[in-house]
């Protein structure tokens, strides 16, 4: 029983982080109709940015996080503006292939630039834990969870309450009408994608703190992000949190009752099952 509680706590904390990972993907998918197979690679790059800020400049990872987000935002903006904008109206299958190409490019770049060694971001308080009703909870995981929730809520605020957010939502629903209201799509699309990669960067930074980073973590994280995005649907960022929690808990339970090497079976399995049973997403609409 005690163990189950511990596992559940682990699952929920991980779930928050997963939700943050999926958020960028869901945003880009819902608004730009781009199925970004390179999403995991952006997460991975964000992790490396944070790592080098930490290892090279001694910045606390939570302080480095906004910087990583900024860097990834700029990078994503340029990628969209320079490359993806050129194929936005192509059939879906072309965007799948091109993002796959980007994924390959980024992964091999990372392999070249950072080597294949595993890195971990270990601030001084990395080993600190505290007790929550009998479960041992690492401090960094709670902090990561908190940041994840904060950013998710922040995105929701941005989409609902700011001019930029309204423009993004308008463009998602009806680009022609939005253009009539002065929305400039090239810039807006780039901003949206940049937001997506910024969130990926944040998720990567947090991932680097709670786990290890290598150039190859991308594909499994992309898969998980898809599963979460599909469970939660693409309408509302807050639903993605639910999706993340579900996956986090399922993975934790799988690790406990079946075996830790089966977690990928669980996450991809959920992805396939949800698609088969309810392609419209369990909670919301999918693009």
């Amino acid at each position, binding site marked *: 029983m005690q163990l189950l509680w511990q596992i559940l706590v682990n699952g929920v904390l991980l779930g928050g982080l997963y939700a943050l990972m999926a958020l960028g993907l869901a945003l880009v998918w819902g608004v730009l109709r781009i199925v970004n197979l390179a999403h995991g690679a952006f997460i991975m790059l964000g992790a490396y940015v944070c790592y080098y800020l930490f290892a090279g400049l001694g910045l606390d990872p939570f302080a480095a996080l906004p910087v990583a987000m900024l860097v990834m935002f700029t990078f994503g903006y340029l990628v969209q503006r320079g490359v993806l904008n050129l194929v936005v109206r192509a059939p879906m299958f072309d965007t799948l292939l091109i993002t796959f190409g980007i994924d390959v490019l980024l992964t091999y770049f990372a392999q070249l630039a950072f080597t294949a060694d595993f890195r971990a971001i270990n601030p001084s308080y990395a080993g600190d834990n505290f007790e929550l009703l009998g479960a041992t909870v690492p401090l960094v995981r709670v902090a990561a969870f908190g940041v994840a929730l904060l950013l998710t809520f922040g995105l929701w605020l941005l989409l609902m309450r700011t001019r930029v957010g309204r423009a993004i939502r308008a463009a998602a629903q009806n680009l022609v009408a939005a253009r009539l209201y002065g929305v400039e799509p090239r810039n807006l699309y780039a901003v949206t994608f940049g937001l997506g990669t910024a969130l990926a960067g944040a998720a990567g930074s947090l991932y680097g703190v709670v786990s290890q980073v290598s150039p190859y973590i991308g594909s499994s994280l992309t898969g998980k992000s898809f599963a979460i995005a599909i469970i939660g649907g693409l309408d509302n960022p807050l639903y993605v949190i639910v999706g993340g929690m579900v996956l986090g808990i399922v993975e934790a339970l799988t690790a406990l009752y079946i075996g830790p090497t089966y977690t990928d079976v669980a996450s991809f399995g959920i992805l396939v099952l949800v698609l*088969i049973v309810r392609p419209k997403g369990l909670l919301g609409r999918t693009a």
Partner: protein
Amino acid sequence: MTLPVRAVIVAIVVALLAAVPSIAPAIIVQFGISALIMVTLAQSWNIIGGYTGYTAFGNSVFYGLGGYGTAVAMVQFHLPFAAGLALGAALAVVFALLLGLPVLRLRGQYFAIATLGLVGVMTAIVSNLDIAGSNSGLVLPLLKGDTLFYELALALALLTTLTVAWIARSRFGFGLIAIRENEEAAEVMGIDTTLHKVLAFMLSAVFSALAGGIHAYWITYIDPAGAFDVTLNVKMIIMVVFGGPGTVLGPVVGAVLLSAISEILAVNVTSFAGMFFGLVVVIAIVFMPRGLTDVMRRFREVGWRCFQENVRTYRV
């Protein structure tokens, strides 16, 4: 060109190709084996992707199942190669049937993502199976000499291409094309779309699996990451899309070209080769999204502007 004339030409080409191992150096034979396996894979994807219009990433699963079926049969049960191939193909076909039914009901991007998910699931499951060697994989018995593999790969490539040629002129193939062009209209015109799609998926599975089996025995090794590699599936898609989807010879051209390019790149450092591959994909999609044949056709009409037009059609 009449049928008998075409048949004679094909026979001559095949005979020439079959003679390669006796006259060419080993390195050419090895390239030949890789290229012929790619031809088979391209054609197998052509059936479900090119003719039926369903962008599948699941061929990696069939390829992997073919390889593992062969490996497990030979290593764990000491069965002959033919039995292994049969087992691998059977596994793939059953998988295509059972999972094809629910997954082929999905539209476009969801179908693609579902098949991607299937690859992830199978990779994870197989890496947990002891009988399949878990993460370390299996080492297959060694068969000296490449000639057998070359001839087998040639025969399989020929068989697959002939099957596609049959599809192109059969009622079944017409049904697939109708589904690709407009599935709703196909339904009301009397085409049993579910049956057609699942059959196409199963056919595609058989050929991908056989290719996987041959490849596994040839390199005497299989492991989950290599067997279920999504990159391979993407290469299949690229070969077909750029050679000409829904045609008989397009995928052959695409496969040979891509194999040649891969060979050239393989000489270099892996990371750069990998990055180059990614870059090539990106550039190709931006400037040639409809494939080589389309570009060649339009180049004759409008010259370099065809690239500009491609971009203009699909940009924001």
